């Protein structure tokens, strides 16, 4: 890319990554044959502890981490390939997803030796799950305005406050909470600190929030005089904002940001068969061109992470484009179902159910994990406009 502020590395997957792809495909084929992985009738990331354990048994959780913490010391590009294969096949990876993508890497980068040896081996064995405690009722896009706080006491901290939209808080072990530990100094990004909190600890209350499609993924998490030891703090006191920013490239560039509705394309093609009008072929081709381009971009970001760069702007671009693509898929598939009159075909019931669920989820794609407007602000900043 010629613009100084945007970077692209031409991703060339190492042979080991292609070998891993074959292994993951064999795993997926086995899951299907054994009846554990049915063709999907819902979008979103399924949550299955059994599946997570089987994935962990292959060594695919914490793939890039040091061996002493249960990792395999493989490259970011190999992890990329493993995740895109699992997601494209709709394997339910929700239990370990956040810990593997985000919590583990944050601990590796900022955690103490004690934290690393305490949490990481359990994560990589598929036994220890995390969720993200960032958003609050009054702090969504404006995260720095958050009001949950911790005050110092002897030997630890007392947390009070409320987190919301906390995906999977009702079925994981730990939440990494971003809270205020001092009044904002000159910069409002100062004074924030990250803590690891056991969701079963006294004073923590998790209540369900049903999402628009009627699913229970979100929660509200209330913290009332929750005591955590000093050892629960991640990194430096007051450095939370910088640490959270470092997570963003992981959080925003992965294949989960453009593959949420991919299964809809697979089901559509499956039901469509050989018959398709030229306009249908054209619409599908246009959609697939966006998918193929997003995949190259996503690999490029993985390549930059591998090289030790922090491609936050490029990651924001992947998520801005990827999530809008996910919405486009729903629209195009819905139109093709109508134009090709697919409602009576064999397998149409599953396609219809999937389409209905995807349509109900689609407004969330461009909101969760940072709204597209916030992402574009980050991109504009990267271009030097602010």
């Amino acid at each position, binding site marked *: 890319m010629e613009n100084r502020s945007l970077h*692209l590395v031409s991703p060339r997957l190492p042979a080991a990554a292609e070998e891993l792809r074959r292994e993951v495909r064999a795993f997926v084929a086995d899951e*299907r044959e054994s009846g554990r992985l049915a063709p999907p009738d819902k979008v979103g990331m399924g949550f299955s502890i059994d599946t997570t354990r089987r994935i962990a048994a292959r060594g695919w959780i914490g793939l890039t981490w040091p061996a002493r913490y249960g990792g395999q010391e493989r490259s970011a590009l190999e992890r990329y390939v493993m995740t895109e294969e699992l997601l494209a096949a709709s394997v339910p990876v929700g239990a370990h997803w956040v810990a593997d993508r985000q919590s583990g890497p944050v601990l590796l980068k900022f955690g103490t030796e004690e934290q690393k040896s305490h949490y990481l081996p359990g994560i990589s064995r598929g036994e220890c799950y995390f969720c993200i405690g960032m958003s609050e009722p009054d702090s969504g896009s404006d995260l720095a305005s958050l009001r949950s706080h911790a005050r110092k006491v002897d030997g630890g901290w007392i947390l009070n406050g409320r987190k919301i939209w906390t995906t999977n808080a009702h079925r994981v072990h730990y939440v990494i909470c971003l809270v205020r530990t001092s009044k904002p100094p000159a910069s409002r990004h100062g004074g924030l600190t990250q803590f690891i909190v056991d969701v079963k600890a006294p004073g923590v209350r998790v209540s369900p929030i049903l999402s628009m499609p009627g699913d229970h993924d979100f929660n509200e998490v209330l913290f009332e005089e929750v005591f955590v030891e000093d050892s629960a703090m991640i990194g430096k006191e007051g450095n939370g904002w910088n640490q959270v920013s470092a997570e963003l490239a992981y959080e925003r560039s992965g294949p989960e940001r453009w593959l949420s509705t991919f299964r809809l394309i*697979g089901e559509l093609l499956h039901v469509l068969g*050989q018959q398709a009008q030229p306009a249908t072929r054209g619409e*599908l081709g246009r959609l697939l061109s966006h998918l193929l381009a997003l995949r190259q971009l996503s690999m490029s970001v993985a390549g930059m992470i591998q090289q030790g760069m922090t491609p936050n702007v490029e990651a924001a671009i992947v998520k801005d484009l990827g999530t809008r693509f996910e919405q486009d898929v729903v629209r195009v598939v819905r139109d093709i179902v109508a134009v090709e009159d697919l409602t009576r075909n064999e397998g149409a019931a599953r396609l219809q159910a999937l389409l209905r669920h995807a349509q109900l989820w689609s407004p969330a794609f461009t909101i969760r994990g940072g709204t597209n407007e916030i992402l574009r602000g980050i991109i504009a900043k990267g271009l030097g406009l602010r």
Partner: protein
Amino acid sequence: MSNTEAGDDAAIFSDAVQRILTDTVTALAIENAAQRKFPTALFDALAQSGVTSMLVPEHQGGTGAGISAAVAVMRAIGAAAAPGPIVETIIANVFLAKARLPAFERPIALAFAAETESLRGSANSSPLTLRDVLWGGLVDHVLIVFRDGNARIALTHRDDWIVTPGGDAADEPRDVLVSRNVPLACAEIPDGTYDELFCFAALLRSGQILGAIEWVFRRTVEFAMERKQFGREIGKFQAVQQMLAELADHALASAAITEAAALETSDVLIAAARSRLADAADAAIRIGHQVHGAIGFSREYALNFRTRRLMAWRDDYGSVPYWNQRLGERFIGLPREAVWPAITDTKAEPIVG
């Protein structure tokens, strides 16, 4: 070819091409091209530097560079809005090499008969009509490629044609040529060459489109930092920032897919690049002009040299619907489990004729 070799090839040409473009592609040269004056200084310099024969094997007198180096060269040429039949001559010289004929230093116009809506005909139709031939009436030679029956080429001279002048959105000549003499003398080319080189021509045009999009993106961001309204740079307004971020999205995504297609040259990735670039080009035209406001709409301001070429190029060597459908075609009939492997294993299917 390995990535490194491609990089080396590109590096060899990059400085020379940039110098040539700076020296020869002036606003006057671009306007002259719009008045049907051939850009001789530019073209001769590119020919002398080996660009126009860069894809011809060394043992046949060319430079023997890789396709990704040629795409990189066209990216610079597109960014400069350089006029002339450059892709056409590069590809025509490869066809000549395939037929064991020597490469030309002079410009050649190129017509793929029977491939697109605008070009229909066989070597024996009487008279043969070629539409929208870029610079067709202003160069000495027109190379026609046929694929009805055996794939073959006919190298014709301007005296063989009656020319009706036409032009595209950039006012570069696109002429209608009607043959005076049929049948034409033809040379056979290997099976599969037609589609292979049609795809390569489409890919080189991708490089040119990408270069123009990236120029529009860079210039528009700069403009937003210079232009003041309401007492501050317009780039400080969130509405403008959101538009520029969207343009950045398109520029980076189209660079990613075009570079991938240039390295791998599978027809899936080439089709994806052409299809993706079309949406990016449309966004560059829309956002580039919207941010520039009235000044960008003046003939004098350099933005239109790129946006008008984007309008002309997006449907070259296969229209946008053609490439959309060609890509979609590859996925029709796949069972659900086969769809993802078709996305990742694009190398498995080389271009076939």
